């Protein structure tokens, strides 16, 4: 799984979000990371939707916000894959610690 795809799944793990909210969440999470652009986001979203990890849903009605926005929701498969990827990454972090590439607290 590509890093951007994992980032999107992570953003959707605690609730449905629209595209701009996903970008905001990713940027808020990793201030030091390279900024994410809309082109990159939607290509990744297309892949996630096609693989059945994410599904588009209608968002809530927001008064004065124009037409209803499309939100994205994590599917069960998506949640399972995100968990699997998180475990894999955690395992890698443990391995890095064992190899003394990381110390506790970093």
């Amino acid at each position, binding site marked *: 799984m590509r890093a951007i795809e994992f980032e999107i799944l992570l953003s959707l793990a605690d609730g449905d979000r629209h595209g701009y909210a996903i970008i905001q969440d990713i940027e808020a999470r990793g201030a030091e990371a390279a900024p994410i652009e*809309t*082109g990159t986001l*939607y290509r990744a979203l297309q892949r996630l939707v096609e693989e059945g990890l994410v599904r588009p849903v209608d968002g809530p009605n927001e008064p004065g916000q124009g037409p209803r926005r499309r939100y994205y929701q994590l599917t069960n498969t998506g949640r399972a894959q995100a968990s699997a990827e998180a475990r894999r990454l955690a395992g890698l972090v443990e391995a890095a610690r064992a190899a003394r590439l990381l110390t506790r607290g970093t």
Partner: protein
Amino acid sequence: MTARWRRWYRLGLRAFPAEFRNRWGAEMEETFSDRMAGLDPGAARRLALRELATLVASGLRERGTIGGGAPLLQARDLKHALRLLGRSPGFSLLTVLVLAGGLGLSTFTFSFLHTAMIKALPLAEGERIVRIDPMASGRVEPIDAADAAAFVGSLRSLVEVGGYGNRDLVVGRDGNRQVVDGAVVDPVLFSVARMPPLLGRTLIPADAAPGAEPVIVLSYRTWVLVFGADRELIDRPVVINDRPTRVVGVMPERFGFPVATEAWMALPTETYLTNTPGVASIRLAGRLAPGVTHEQAAAEASAVLRRVVSARVPGRLDSLAVSVESFPAMQFGEERVLTFSVLNLLAALILVLALVNVTNLLLARLNERSRETAVRLALGASTARLVIQGMWETVLLCLVGGILGTAAAAWGLDAITRWTRANMEGNLAFWWVWQMDTVTVLVAGGFVTLATAALGSVVARQALSTNVREVLSDGGIRGGSRREGRLSRTLVAIQVATVTVLMFFGAMSGVIARRVMNLDLGYDLTNLLHGAIAPPEGRYPSAEARAALYRKAHAALVAQGEFDRILLRRTLAEQHSPSGRFVTRGSGPDPVAPTAHQLAVLGDLSTSGVTIVEGRGFEVTDDPSRAPVALVSRSLAARWWRGRSPVGDQIRLAGVGDTTAWRTIVGVASDVVYGNPLSRDRGPDAVYLPLLQDDGPVAVVMARFRSTESAGRAALIEAVGEADPLLVPEGIQPFAGVVRKAGFIALSVSKLFAACFAFALFLAVVGTYGLMSRSIGLRRGEIGIRRALGASEAGVRVLLLRQAAGQLGRGALVAAPVLGVVGVGFSSYFPIGAGLTVGLAVGVSVAIVAVVLATTWIPTRRAARVGLRESLTGG
């Protein structure tokens, strides 16, 4: 702001395949808009640019993966393109050379003209340094020193404003004197220039204070040529204008602010303190205050000057204004942007021509590779992959061509700088240093990008239009579709039109350049010095006072043993101008009013090549106390006194001087051509008046010296000084230098265009041959069938030549109106008659027809001889 970026974003979305765009486009645009909302303009611009770059890259990547293919941008495509280019070294070399020529010439032309006309001065914040020139009735004039202090002191939109004036400085004594083009400047101008000295210091305000010790700052060139680059010179006294003067500094090489100054002395502060108008006049320079435009500064300065002058001279001053312009702008006048644009447009046509030729070469090559392309498509390669591979080839060709072209342009710029330094030093504005700079590199990059985009789109169109079934069933040889035939014919028409326009422009420029180079003023320029005596109005308030000064100065100049001949002269009117009219006594109302160049003269007319052929010349006694007299030129006499002598007749000038006085013609002078060499009004019809009988604010001195130029300059200054110790003749320089300097830019531009047109002609011959070969090649199948059906070789030849004639006709249709515009434009600016213009247009057209028919003949002959089998199988 956001709406504009949003439009760009929508455009960028086109990089994505339609399927993706339809599904996600609207939402992406919304998200982009959300991100932009609330950002300040700078942050919004940065984000938008980043978004757009990523958007296009993502779109291209998305296109590459449609249908499950591999990523679009692959290193192996680059290698493949390199392999293909290496397989045809001849094609690659020719393409690169044509591109390098087109790109190099366009870049060089842009840079040359940009440096000469547009570029800011090569000084710190040079774009803010300006000349401040009062203008009366549209004519630029120096400011009267009596107004300068109040004017400068009231300005808010201009800072560090200081006065300057050109002054010839005589360095050394007696037998070892040299004259350098110096300037007296307000020390504040060194703050304007912000250029640290090479040695010592620059001028400081204390140097201009009353009673200050005279000091001088030398240019690098003066320091080297006059003082042998002596490092011990600083703080040592040298003799300047017969006064011991301390050298306090030497400026770095190629610094000549304000224009081409060779030494600087301080403009005394009392110059500003004078209350008497007419004692002195100065020019002003300074900096625009931060954030102020030229127009704002000019508006403020005009208002201030009107206020200052109206305090001294009551009355309407509406025609008084102030021009605030950069130094290069003032040199080239209001039409510099138009001139710059037109000349660059012509250079860009060379690039168009090169691109047409390269397009043809690429199309021919794609045609050859059409079978390979079709097979790859049939085996499942994506069209995007083929387009990208073709694009890599184009990018590589354009890059190499661009690098070679830019290197050639850099060499050319350096060469022209070296040439001007060797041949024109001392006469050139200091900012005329041609070299590669950031703007030129950016422009070269722009040209390369344009070339890549233009050629890339042709390659992409061709690859996208490949019809697998058609190509493969054609047995490997493509007869050429109607679309291709049309494209090929269009390219020939564009080529014909472009070359015709370029050649016509070149021919017209050549005629003008030839006139400039062979300019015959009608007299010998050897040992002839030019200078000007301008008596200040304050001390010479009346016509009698000015006449007395001119008489004294003339007598002092004649008394100088250094001069062989002396003439004081003032041009009063140009022929064909309203002020050039005159009336002959006794003639009734004439529908055609006689006109002539009108000059006031004092001294030996033979200095300017004129001799008296009948009657008498002027004498020093022909002054205001005597009856008004005049001389006419032989050509004027022949035109208006046909078959009889004009001597004894009377004329009255209608536009200048005393227009009521009848002047008796006392003699006839030989013909000399007057008028601007590049104007339509040049001719020998002239009326001469005695300088002492026609009042005027200035007299030009023409002095033929006996020994050296330096001695001549010094003697001129000395003689005028004898007439008025406070008066220094202005602008002393050899006449030959004046003429050479006037023609330098015209000559350089003409040479530049001669090179451009030679290259255009080369491209025309090579390109038309290639285009016609290809155009005829596309009809090979048809020719074979015609031959099989009994068409003769001659019949096929006629058919193909008719095709060429048709393409010529289409090209001519496009070119004709442009030729008309160029012809009318040239004729209205320069002395080129309608006959010559039409003749040149016809000549150029005939030459182009000959080139096209000649380059058509060879492929036509070859095609007509081809047999049916070969035609249909490509054997």
